[in-house]
């Protein structure tokens, strides 16, 4: 391996985990709400499904959800945290899919990996009055077309404690 590729490898490794670091740090911050959803909460509607569907489902590993709700005292923290996430997502490793910005509400969707083999999907939403939220779906070679195909047959376990907690938070944002 040439020195150049070692340097590139080092840069790649150095840049990509920063969202991971941000999520870990946010979980330790009391201002944040954090939920980890294991892939096991996604189950299949039908018991008899093809191996292909099972294989697609197996590419999804887990989901992180973190949110910071604006209160009377944390406006400055919100601004600095918003900038932090924006900077992380500016890394060209994150391929941006869609970005929508409307009256102080921003939503960005991006991913890591190749278009047919995605390892990470990140959805970042922020609102200047309500707060911010980051959703990260981790997987291994997730194929969006396949996931789209199976989305009709999957079922999210809405009685699990994680999903209930998530619903509670989302309710609070409205």
């Amino acid at each position, binding site marked *: 391996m040439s020195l150049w590729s070692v340097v590139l490898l080092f840069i*790649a490794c150095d840049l990509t985990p920063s969202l991971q670091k941000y999520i870990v740090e946010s979980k330790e911050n009391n201002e944040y709400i954090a939920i980890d959803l294991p892939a096991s909460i996604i189950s299949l509607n039908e018991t008899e499904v093809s191996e292909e569907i099972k294989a697609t489902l197996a590419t999804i590993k887990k989901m992180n959800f973190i949110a910071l709700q604006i209160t009377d005292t944390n406006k400055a923290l919100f601004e600095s945290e918003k900038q932090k996430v924006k900077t992380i997502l500016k890394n060209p490793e994150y391929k941006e899919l*869609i970005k*929508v*910005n409307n009256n102080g509400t921003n939503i960005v969707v991006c991913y890591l990996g190749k*278009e047919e083999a995605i390892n990470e999907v990140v959805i970042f939403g922020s609102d200047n009055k309500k707060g911010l939220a980051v959703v990260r779906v981790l997987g291994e070679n997730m194929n969006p*077309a396949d996931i*789209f195909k199976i989305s009709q047959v999957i079922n999210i376990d809405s009685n699990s404690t994680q999903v209930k907690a998530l619903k509670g938070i989302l309710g609070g944002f409205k």
Partner: protein
Amino acid sequence: MVAAPFFAIAQSSLFDKFEDMNDVSSVIVNKEAFKMLSKFKGSGPEVKEYMDLVQNIESFRVFTTENSAIASQMSVTIDSYLKSSKLTELMRIKDKDANVKIYIRQGKDENHVNELLMFVNDMKNKTNQQAVILSLTGSIDLNKISTLVEPHIPNSGKHLKKQ
């Protein structure tokens, strides 16, 4: 990997500065999203037509503002962009509703363009919109583009179709 940063630069545009402004609404859809969309195969001729259209799109950007100061800033940016780029004017429409300018960069044949830029200002309609910038890059079929442009700039489709 070496090419990645350059690619990222190619994706950004002069208009991106409007994105972070408070009084600007924006929608940015990149090539990867269109590519993914084209894989969610549906059925029917409309889906097929839509897929043909979006497959070769590199980027789609729309910036809308209700703020007249930003609208004039947009106008200045458009002018300076036109000076530095190789765009030619396709048409200019001034009527009671708005002032619409459309610019293109010629593509592989007379029906295709590699870039389409629309700028609408002096808008007098029910919404409070002052100005809209719509920028499309990639290989675009002029006969089909109205499907994408129409929702953002009403009545623009009929002008484009006249071509």
